């Protein structure tokens, strides 16, 4: 909100010596954030405020003046004016009725006759422009001026266009329509409150007037409206119609019904002055249920406990009085008072009975009173101290520790961590060639995304990695190794989202990708190192299938029946769908499966005391036999004495019978309690050869 400094100074005395920079800092210090000081078109200083939603009273020059007066203890004054009302009572000219006082607690109107529509005088135009409002004509300008000055939106109807000279405040009828001032025809429903005349809706209550009853060049008599509406009702209406105005922005935060007559008087006086109007006597005022001021029973000790201060009751009372709160200091009643949550000292008065001014409806609780005390006392005068309570242990927790470990391992392996959006385009599942009905297609849908490519919550980290690769290849970064630790989001299959939050599950994954000219084994090396780094034991890599992977170059990492990861080279058709010219090998590691088998604290295994016997063994087996199967056969047949069977060479070629390959192993035999003899090793070695023969039809390569 923009407040010209000169206007502010008409309503409050700013102490001499307080220049604009200091004023800015001081107001910011009590919660009225001055974002900038600008210059109006005619060179006046203008304060730009960012007012929090709880302070609609400060969306006006008067509201700021009140706060400044409290701050500087100088007092503020309402604008001075003279109203020459007279003649027929307004209530004889117009009738107003409200169907639901909860939605419109107060409706006030004045009738001003004999208006000459024209431009406003220069001083008024300049002031509106300084406050960021475009002048239109003297009547509209007068209402805007009063809204800026006092915070009360007003509306002027061409009185002669109101059927029956009647105002009815009521919910709109089903399918009622109204063309608003901006020329848009709006379809209404009963959730929207309207101002109607005897026949039809003539304005959207608290939001915008109607075109038919607008003040025009030929208008001579006007009905000036100032009302108070239910904040939630205006807010809903404004949202439903997607129409926000200066008026609705104020009403939807809740305004003070007590300011209605003052605003009508002020506006009428201005119209008398600048538009030659004659104001009919009195106000049409529908205000069936004036609200008593709220009273808050406030414990001094409780306020001190919340703030960590040691203010006396009298000091608090003085601070509150400066903010127009009425304060009655009550003598100590029952010694300690109910639990104060802190050992605030209580000097003298133990309780304050605080009456809240009508423009401060945001203050309803003891904690609100504490904030008023604190901000005027000064947040900077509250001391800083570390928590005095019992020590607590603190900690990351096992999940976050696991994630940090993953980062260290992958960073050490030369991977770069990426961070991509959790949402993706629904069609990536097509690009990834994921078949219909595949579980990866059970994604959670964002109903109101910013863009179509952010509609689907991702079920796999692959789309994010692919976007990163695309982005980099576009910039000629043609090779890289990347990873991301993030969640994926899944709809439990067969459950409609209406089932509620239980139908949604979040999982944790690590996505890994190598791009450029990667091969399966580069990726496999990374994944095995990662799993080893997390202390996962007994990991096996088995051939697997995934629609988006090369059918012959895809594996699953498993341990004890749990699928830990899927890894492979991406299928060429996926690369074509992405129009990617580089190769990609990618893996997804399922942390929910890794978590239970990851080992945080390792156990030491004694080192062998006796020397091993090492034998190299080259075996010829059919080409299709996986090396892992041969390795486990060696271990199985070799028994306990085999401490390691390491594959060191694979050969296929002309020196072998067609359809076979040679696998060369280094087998380490070791006993914990003795040095093995030749004879002891011969026996398992023979068992191994027999098993290779029986199981695979293989033999020793000689």
């Amino acid at each position, binding site marked *: 909100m923009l407040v010209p400094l000169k206007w502010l100074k008409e309503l409050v005395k700013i102490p001499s010596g307080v220049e604009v920079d200091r004023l800015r800092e001081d107001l910011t210090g009590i919660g009225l954030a001055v974002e900038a000081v600008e210059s109006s078109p005619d060179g006046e200083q203008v304060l730009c405020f960012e007012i929090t939603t709880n302070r609609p009273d400060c969306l006006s020059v008067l509201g700021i003046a009140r706060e400044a007066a409290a701050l500087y203890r100088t007092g503020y004054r309402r604008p001075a004016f003279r109203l020459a009302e007279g003649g027929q009572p307004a209530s004889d000219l117009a009738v107003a009725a409200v169907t639901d006082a909860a939605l419109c607690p107060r409706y006030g109107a004045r009738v001003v006759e004999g208006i000459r529509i024209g431009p406003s005088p220069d001083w008024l135009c300049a002031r509106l422009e300084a406050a960021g409002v475009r002048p239109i004509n003297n009547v509209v300008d007068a209402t805007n001026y009063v809204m800026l000055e006092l915070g009360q939106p007003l509306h002027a109807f061409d009185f002669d266009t109101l059927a029956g000279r009647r105002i009815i405040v009521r919910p709109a009828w089903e399918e009622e329509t109204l063309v608003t001032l901006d020329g848009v025809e709006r379809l209404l429903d009963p959730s929207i409150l309207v101002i109607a005349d005897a026949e039809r809706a003539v304005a959207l209550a608290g939001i915008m007037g109607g075109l038919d009853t607008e003040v025009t060049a030929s208008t001579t008599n006007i009905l000036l409206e100032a009302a108070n509406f239910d904040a939630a009702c205006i807010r809903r209406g404004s949202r439903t119609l997607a129409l926000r105005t200066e008026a609705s922005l104020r009403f939807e935060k809740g305004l003070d019904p007590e300011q209605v007559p003052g605003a009508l008087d002020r506006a009428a006086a201005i119209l008398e002055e600048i538009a030659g109007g004659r104001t009919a006597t009195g106000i049409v005022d529908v205000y069936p249920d004036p609200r008593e001021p709220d009273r808050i029973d406030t414990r001094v000790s409780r306020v001190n406990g919340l703030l960590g201060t040691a203010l006396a009751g009298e000091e608090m009372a003085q601070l509150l009085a400066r903010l127009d709160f009425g304060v009655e200091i009550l003598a100590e009643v029952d010694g300690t008072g109910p639990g104060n949550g802190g050992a605030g000292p209580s000097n003298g008065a133990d309780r304050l009975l605080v009456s809240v001014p009508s423009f401060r409806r945001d203050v309803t609780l003891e904690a609100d009173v504490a904030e008023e005390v604190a901000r005027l006392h000064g947040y900077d005068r509250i001391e800083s101290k570390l*928590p005095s309570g*019992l020590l607590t242990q603190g900690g990351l927790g096992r999940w976050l520790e696991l994630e940090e470990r993953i*980062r260290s391992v992958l960073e050490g392996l030369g991977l770069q961590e990426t961070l991509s959006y*959790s949402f993706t385009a629904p069609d990536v599942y097509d690009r990834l060639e994921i078949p219909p009905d595949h579980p990866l297609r059970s994604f959670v849908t964002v109903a109101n995304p910013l863009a179509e490519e952010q509609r689907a919550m991702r079920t796999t980290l692959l789309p994010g990695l692919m976007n990163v690769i695309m982005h980099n290849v576009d910039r000629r970064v043609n090779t890289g190794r990347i990873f991301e630790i993030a969640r994926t989001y899944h709809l439990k299959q067969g459950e409609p989202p209406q089932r509620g939050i239980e139908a949604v599950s979040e999982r944790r994954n690590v996505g890994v990708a190598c791009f450029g000219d990667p091969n399966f084994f580069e990726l496999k090396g990374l994944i095995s190192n990662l799993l080893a780094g997390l202390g996962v034991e007994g990991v096996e890599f088995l051939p697997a299938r995934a629609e988006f992977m090369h059918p012959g170059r895809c594996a699953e990492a498993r341990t004890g029946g749990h699928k830990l990861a899927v890894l492979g080279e991406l299928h060429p058709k996926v690369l074509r769908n992405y129009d990617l010219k580089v190769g990609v090998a990618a893996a997804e590691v399922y942390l929910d499966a890794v978590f239970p088998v990851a080992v945080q604290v390792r156990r030491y295994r004694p080192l062998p005391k006796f020397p091993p016997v090492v034998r190299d063994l080259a075996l010829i087996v059919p080409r299709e036999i996986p090396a892992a199967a041969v390795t486990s056969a060696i271990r199985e047949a070799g028994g306990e004495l085999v401490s390691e069977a390491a594959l060191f060479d694979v050969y296929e070629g002309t020196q072998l019978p067609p359809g076979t390959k040679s696998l060369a192993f280094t087998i380490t035999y070791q006993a914990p309690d003795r040095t093995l003899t030749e004879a002891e090793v011969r026996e398992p070695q023979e068992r191994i050869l027999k098993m290779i023969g029986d199981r695979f039809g293989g033999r020793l390569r000689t």
Partner: protein
Amino acid sequence: MTEQVSTYIPEQVSEVEALAKSAFDQVKTPEDLQSFRIEFLGKKGMITYLLKGLGQLPPEARREAGIRINLLRQEVEDLITLKESSLGREAEARRLEAEVIDVTLPGKGTPLGSRHPVNLVILEIKKIFVSLGFEVWEGPEIETDYYNFEALNIGRDHPARDTQDSFYITPDILLRTHTSPVQIRCMEIKAPEVPLRMVAVGKTYRRDNDATHSPMFHQVEGLVVDRGTSLAELKGTLLAFARRMFGSETRIRLRPSHFPFTEPSAEVDVSCPICGGGGCGVCKQSGWLEILGAGMVHPNVLRAGGYDPEAVNGFAFGMGVERIAMQRYAIDNMRLLFENDLRFLGQFR
């Protein structure tokens, strides 16, 4: 040489000694040294010959001659050893010289990877709060309206819903707009235990996308519930955090503000770590950086978490991680954080 009774002739020894010395001076190579050894210490070497002659000396001369000749032998052996090692060193030096490499060629092995700057900042923040006795919690990113809004004192028609324009899944389920729902979930589990000290870290979502806003971003949020905790302790905690995070000279400034879930509420500024408060481009000349929102937990929120606001107080604070990362690494556009250009990420090794 004929068998004869030798007599000890000291001149003979001196002659051999002189010969040895002059021959030794001619030794330049390992081969020279070998010939020298043979000439004097070999089976038929001169010193060997002298030693052999000892036996034929009369006992009285043998002793003196023995001492003298053995001394000579020792001397020659020492010379040989010395020469051997000096010749070896020279040879090695020549070899090493020939083995020179271009040390400016690149090193081998995989280059170090990197962590994302946002996660670097999160890790730093987590470590600080853990050391202050806070537990780190997480919660779901897809949340219910209840946890994201209602329980935090943000009713259906609360204006604060505007500033947190949300991504909805259904009218009642949304992507969380802040990490505050984790506070409620944590309190539900811990209440009525005190003290509770927790921070929640994670991804949050709002419908914003420009140079300073991203539809997905990260927050760290903290909560303390204890008997007798206060705004003063909130200030102390945030000051301790700010000094660890931004440097020991850091000051903080609290300004009254408004959040539905705290009362009293404050915006917390941190003195600019770049200029120390004097004003610079990073802090837009103000000397302060807006980093945190904070306040005393609203009684309704404590109640929603299962605590009795008459028995305990709470304070809470929250901060946006991207903002801190941008300030810390002098990044001027938030989009850089989510584009994942490897040339950008590689700067955080």
